[in-house]
C-alpha cells in the first residue's frame, strides 16, 4: 500500500482550509475520492446530504516513498503505513507522533515486541524564526556582489570567505 487511510477516522479535513495529506505529499499521491463499498460496489453517500462520501486515498501506492509526511500531518491520525508487501512480511508497524519540539516513535514488531523512542525535532519554535537576527544588516553590501563569499560570511567577517587554493 504503503500509506493507507483508516476509513472511519478520515473526515476529509472537512472544515479545514486544506486536506492535510493531499497538501503535504511530496509525490502527489493523496487524493480525495468517492468511497465505494468494496462488497456492494455502490458509491457510499452521506444520508443527510445525499452527497457521495469523500475520503483520502493513496492513489498510486507503487510510487510511495514511505516518507510518512502524510502520517505525521494528519489531524485525525487516520493514516498509517503498511510496509511494502513485496518484500516485508505483515505485522510490523512504525507509528510517529509529531509534537511541536519532539517526535515520539512506536515501533511494533511482527512478534509483538514494542520499542519506543523520543527525539527532538527543533530548538526554535516553528513560526518564530528571525532570519535577519544575528547576521548583520538585512541589506547586503552591493559593492561586494562580485566578490567571493555569501552575505552572512561578509556580515560576520568569516575568514574562509575569500581564500583560494594554497
Amino acid at each position, binding site marked *: 500500500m*504503503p500509506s493507507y487511510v483508516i476509513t472511519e477516522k478520515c473526515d476529509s479535513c472537512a472544515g479545514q482550509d486544506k486536506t492535510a495529506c493531499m497538501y*503535504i*505529499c*511530496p*509525490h*502527489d499521491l493523496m*487524493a480525495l475520492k468517492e468511497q465505494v463499498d468494496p462488497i456492494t460496489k455502490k458509491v457510499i453517500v452521506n444520508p443527510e446530504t445525499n452527497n457521495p462520501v469523500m475520503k483520502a486515498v493513496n492513489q*498510486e*501506492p*507503487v*510510487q510511495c*516513498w*514511505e*516518507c510518512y509526511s502524510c502520517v505525521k500531518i494528519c489531524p485525525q491520525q487516520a493514516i498509517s*503505513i503498511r*510496509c*511494502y508487501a*513485496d*518484500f*516485508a512480511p505483515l*505485522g*510490523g*508497524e*512504525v507509528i*510517529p507522533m509529531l509534537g511541536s519540539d*519532539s*517526535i515520539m516513535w512506536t*515501533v511494533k*514488531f*511482527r512478534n509483538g*515486541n514494542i*520499542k519506543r*523512542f523520543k*527525539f*527532538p*525535532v*527543533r*530548538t*526554535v519554535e*516553528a*513560526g518564530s524564526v528571525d*532570519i535577519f537576527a544575528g*547576521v548583520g544588516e*538585512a541589506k*547586503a553590501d*552591493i559593492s561586494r*556582489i*562580485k*566578490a*567571493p*563569499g555569501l*552575505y*552572512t560570511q561578509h556580515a560576520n567577517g568569516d575568514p*574562509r*570567505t*575569500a*581564500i*583560494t*587554493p*594554497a
Partner: protein
Amino acid sequence: MEPKVNNWEFCKKPEIVVHETDLLLIGGGMAACGTAYEADRWATPEGLRITMVDKAATDRSGAVAMGLSAINTYLGENSPEDYVRYVRNDLMGITREDLTFDLGRVVDDSVHLFEDWGLPIWKKDEEGKRLDGAQAQREEMPSLRDGGNPVRSGRWQIMINGESYKVIVAEAAKLALENNRKATGVDQNHFERIFIVKLLMDQNDPKKVAGAVGFSVREHKIYIFKCKTALLGTGGCVNVFKTRATAEGQGRAWFPVWNSGSNYAMAAESGAEMTMMENRFVPARFKDGYGPVGAWFLLFKAKATNALGEDYCATNLEESRKLYGKYVDSLGTCMRNHMMMIDMKAGKGPIKIHTDVALQKLSETMSKKEIKHLEAEAWEDFLDMTIAQAGVWAANNMEPEKVPSELMPSEPYLLGSHAGCAGLWTSGPEDFGPDEYSWGYNRMTTVNGLFTAGDGVGASGHKFSSGSHAEGRICGKNMTSYCLDTKGEDVSFSEDHDELAKEIYMPMETFAKYSNYTTDPNINPHYIRPGMMQQRLQKVMDEYVGGVGTWYMTSKSMLEEGFKYLDMVKEDSLHMAAENLHELLRAWENFHRILAGEAHARHIHFREETRYPGYYYRGDFLAIDDENWKCFVNSTYNKETGDWNVFKREYHQLIP
C-alpha cells in the same frame, strides 16, 4: 502511428496564467531554498522580484522531505583543500576542483544558519559524551559558529536530530520570499504544486533563458513565467532503471522517488552543456529498505563481511588492483561496491553488516542508561531519514542491536550532490581556476541566465544537503549580479501561449479522445499510460545500459542495441495518455526521465573505459584508462534533430 494533435476537441482548454518576475527559482528543495534565502539579501534592496515554483509543498519537498540524521558536509576544522582531495578521491580522480573548493569555503555558513533556525545538532561535551541537539541547547553549549563541538560520524559528517530539517530550511526560505514579495509589491511569489516542464529561450538569443512553462497539478491552469534569470533546482533522477523491488516496493527508491530527471532534461532541451552524465550512484544499503549505512560504518564502527566472515575489501584488493591500479587503494564508494560484488557473484553472499557486534562492543564499557541511549541513537538514524527501514526490521522481527543485516547494491540513480557527479557544466568561482572553467557568473550554465545547484551541477559531488543549500545561495547572489548587469536588456520568448498549452495538455487530449475505444482504458492501441511508459524505459535501461539485471554491465554493442529501443521509447512517449492532472504530472516526469536516461546512455557509450567499477562496467573496456580518459565527458543535445554531440573537456588539477 499517426502523430497526436491537440486542438481541444476532447479535452477542455485550461486557463493560462502569466506571471512576470526577475529571478525564477524552479524547485523547492535544499538548493532552491538556499537560493531564495541568499537572493533576498542581494536582490530585494535592488527591487528585483524573486519567484519560487515548486511541484510539491516546500515544507516537505526535495530529497530532504523525510528528514536526515546527519549533515554530510561540514568542514569545521578541515581545509577546503582537503575537502577537494576527499571528493576527487571518491569520484575516481576527476572533479571540477574549482567548484568543489569554492563550495568548501562557503558550506559551513549554511550549517550555522540551520542551527540558528532551530535544527538540533548533536554536541560533544568536554568528556566526549554525546548530547542530542535539544540537550545541548538546554546545557547552553555553544553553537557551531561559536566553537561548539559537533559529533563527527566521519571526518566530514556531523550528526543531527533532523526529522524537521526540511521544514526548518523551508521556513527560512519562505520568510525570505515573503520579505521580497512585500518589498516588490507582487501578489504572489511562492507557487506550490506547479510542475515546470520546459524552459523558454529568448527569441533573439537562443542561448539565453527567458522563462519557463508548467502546469498546476491541482487546477486546470497552465503557468507561464517570464524571467530575467532562472535557477534549475529540481534534483536528480530516480526510477530511470528497473528497481530491485518488484511491486509496490518500487516506491522505496533510495533517492527520492519524485526526482524525475527534470533538471537534466530541461537543461538538455535548452541546449545547456551537460557533464559526466555517464556517472551514476549505486548505493550499497540495507537490503530492500535502503536505510543509511553511514553512521553504522563511521560512528558505530560496524564491519561488513561476506558469509565466510571475510572483509571483502581486503580479500579482493589484489585482484582488483590488476584493472584499477592505484585507484583500489583510495577505496572510494564505487570501489567498495566493486569488491563487494565480486563476492556476491562468487556466491559468497549474503553480505552482512554486523550491527550487532558493533553495538555490543561499544556497550562493553557503558552503563545501562548509556546503552539505552546508544540504542536510541541507532534507531534514530533510520527514523529521521528512512523510516521504511525501521518498518522492514519490525516486519522481520529484526533488532539491529541483536542481529546483523544484509547489504545490497541498489538500482542506479543519476545525481550530482551525493557520491555521484552527473549534471550540468557550470561556470566556476570568480577569483581562481582556469579560464575555460569560468565565464562570468558562478554556477551559471552555458545558457545565459540559467543557473543550477545541488544535483544540477555536474563534476562536483559530495555536497549533500548542506552543500546543495550553500550552492543554491551562490546562485542567488550571482543571479542577482546577472540581473543587475543585464538591466535594460529586453528578454522575451516567441512561443505562442496557446501552442504551449496544447503541447503540455496533449496527454489529456489523447486520453479524452481514445479511452472509450476499449473496455479497459489501461489497454488501448492508441496510447500508453505513463506508468507503463516508465516500466518500459526502466527495462530498456536495465538490460542495455547496465542495471541490476546485468550486474551493471554494458558495452558498445549492448548500448547500440539499446539505442534502437530507446528511440522507440521516445517516439511512443508522444502517445502517452493522462486521465487526470496527477497522471499528466507522471507523463511529464517521464518525458524528463527518458531524456535523462538517454543522456546517461550516450555518455557511457562515449567513455571507453570503466571509470567507476561498482557503479557500472564497460565489458569491452574493463580497466581504467587514465591516458585517454582522465577528462570530463560533456555533451549538448539538439532538440530539433534529437542528436547528441558528445565530447571531451580537459580536467585541470588545482590542488596537489
